[in-house]
């Protein structure tokens, strides 16, 4: 079977949230698209020469340059009279770490591209190593929870706000647990000229250590606990799309091996961080200020 944009037979792991997200994004865009893919799971599971999952134009060059490749593709496309949605898509490593310079450059230059970060919070393709998208206290193979160090020690990089600071006209967060919200955001992004960025939460059963049937459960739970806020920033104005029920964050951690070492103290610290972030988010939304203009 196949959808309009990708076909079955790819080798993404059972329960993969990333291929789920990439398909949702592509289905929301439609066939008039050119995909510029960063190296990662979504490249190696989809295009083992001479086979391909993709039914839309797709190009991969290297790990760190999807946004730069998209810059060239979109300018060439417009020169040739095209009007395709040019999608630069990559994971947290490909966009927030190694491809960060390329992403920043493309956003700053203002190309008419859509950037989607399929964030599964670690380098999954190489075997679950820490990235700047890895959340605090998550255990990865390079930040293993041990007797002295409880996993990663830094908070997650706030890439959506960094995109806003570039003056991108449309920035949103989304989760594969909420496909209608994601589709609406992709369609809105498509309708806006200039650089757009969607930071998409895509759980990884293998990397996070949960049962493959639970991908959507965790994609929803992260939102419900307030850990993954769903919001949009259109021309600098923040709008919260879904107020969470603020279920205890423990509900989200439960069942994920990467968090099994968490103590009540660490959980309390994260809980407080969630509350503080939400207080800031709500303050900014209520103030109606243009976040692009913040110093």
């Amino acid at each position, binding site marked *: 079977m196949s959808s309009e944009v990708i076909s079955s037979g790819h080798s993404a792991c059972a329960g993969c949230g990333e291929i789920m997200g990439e398909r949702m994004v592509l289905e929301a865009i439609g*066939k*008039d*698209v*050119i995909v*510029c*893919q960063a190296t990662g799971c979504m*490249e*190696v599971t989809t*295009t*083992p*020469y*001479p086979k*391909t999952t*993709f*039914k*839309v*134009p*797709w*190009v*991969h*060059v*290297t790990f*760190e*340059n999807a946004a*730069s*490749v*998209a*810059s*060239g*593709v979109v*300018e*060439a*496309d*417009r*020169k*040739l009279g*095209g009007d*395709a949605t040019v999608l630069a898509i990559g994971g947290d490593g490909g966009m927030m770490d190694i491809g960060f*310079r*390329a992403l*920043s*450059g*493309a956003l*700053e*230059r203002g190309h008419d591209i859509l950037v989607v970060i399929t964030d599964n919070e670690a380098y999954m393709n190489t075997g679950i190593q820490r990235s700047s998208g890895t959340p605090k206290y998550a255990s990865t193979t390079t930040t293993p929870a041990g007797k002295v160090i409880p996993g990663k020690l830094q908070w997650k990089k706030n890439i959506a706000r960094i995109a806003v600071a570039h003056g991108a006209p449309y920035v949103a967060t989304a989760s594969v647990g909420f496909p209608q919200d994601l589709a609406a955001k992709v369609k809105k992004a498509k309708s806006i000229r200039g650089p757009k960025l969607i930071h998409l939460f895509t759980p990884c059963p293998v990397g996070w250590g949960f049962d493959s049937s639970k991908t959507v459960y965790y994609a929803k739970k992260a939102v419900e606990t307030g850990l993954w806020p769903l919001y949009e920033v259109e021309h600098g104005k923040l709008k919260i799309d879904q107020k969470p029920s603020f279920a205890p964050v423990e509900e989200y951690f439960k069942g994920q091996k990467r968090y099994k070492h968490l103590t009540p103290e660490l959980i309390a610290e994260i809980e407080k961080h969630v509350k503080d972030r939400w207080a800031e988010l709500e303050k900014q939304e209520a103030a109606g200020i243009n976040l692009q203009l913040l110093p």
Partner: protein
Amino acid sequence: MVKKIEEGSHAVADVVRLLNPGVLAMYPITPSTHIPERLSEFEANGELGGKIIRVESEFSAISAVVGASARGIRAYTATSSQGLALMHEVLFAASGMRLPIVITVANRALSAPLNIFNDWQDSISERDSGWLQFYGEDSQEVVDLMIQAYKIAEDKRVLLPTMVCMDGFFLTHTYDVIDVPEDLKGFVPDYKPEHAFLDPKKPMTQGAWAMQEPYFKLRKELEEAQRSIFPVIKEVHDDFAKVFGRSYGDGLIEVYGEGDNAVVTMGSFSTNLKVLADKLGFQVIRIRCYRPFPDKELAAALKGKESVAVFEKDVSYGTGHGAVYNDVRTVYNGKMVNFIVGLGGLDVPVSALEKMYKQVPEMKDAETRWQI
């Protein structure tokens, strides 16, 4: 045709404008910077057909150019030294993807220590990247090479990315009498790719990954492509000569003068060697096309020589020689010596060349001597 006294970089910009790439990615690095500056002036005055993307790094310059070419349009960038080194990873992708990009390399030394002046270490270090490499002797030849490079690269028998190399400062920043054609007389047809174009109407996948066997076959195919295109390079060179009235040897190598002893070299200081050759009576064989390596032509030219001296501005570290020497060695078994000269922009005047060349009789086969 109008000859103008013009800076080498500006002449390159002039001819790039005529070649009309649809996308040009630009990042400043000495000594290539005058090329994007002049192209930017063209754009600002409405005289440039293509779109310039002012990227945030050379890595993105080559990446944007790869993207543009993958979309199916002619693309261009220029760089030097650290910039070319930063592009390294994408160079291999571009050749593996068979995208006929052309870039100008203003040759410059590589750090450390940091040095902005001319040698060939930057492009020589990319000799195994699968790109074609041409080296011009003067700015006129570089202009002519730019025209030929696009025609060669985009030929359906070729489809390989190409570097046109010009010595930094010696050519990029010096003024010369240069004939930049006013139009290309249809010599380089519009680029209409049949193999690689990202078009929603005809979807394709570019840049797939490959397991051992298909990977091996695709890489072998790349080498076979390089080795099969000597006739195309000669044909384009000869056609160019008919249309524009200038020729350079057989397009692959240029043989200057006569003699039982030969000097092999590339680039702008060939001119100094030619001056010396007139005095001392050796033959100068200038490699114009370094990749693919014209082994048959060189073997024929060097056959029966009493000695061969290779002068070059690069080092193949750990081999005891420069890279050009090592390549020429594969086609010549007689007495052959190597001079490493001009690193970091060290001037190589005729007098220095003469001192070195006069040491050839006392040197042992395979011996390397350094200019200082």
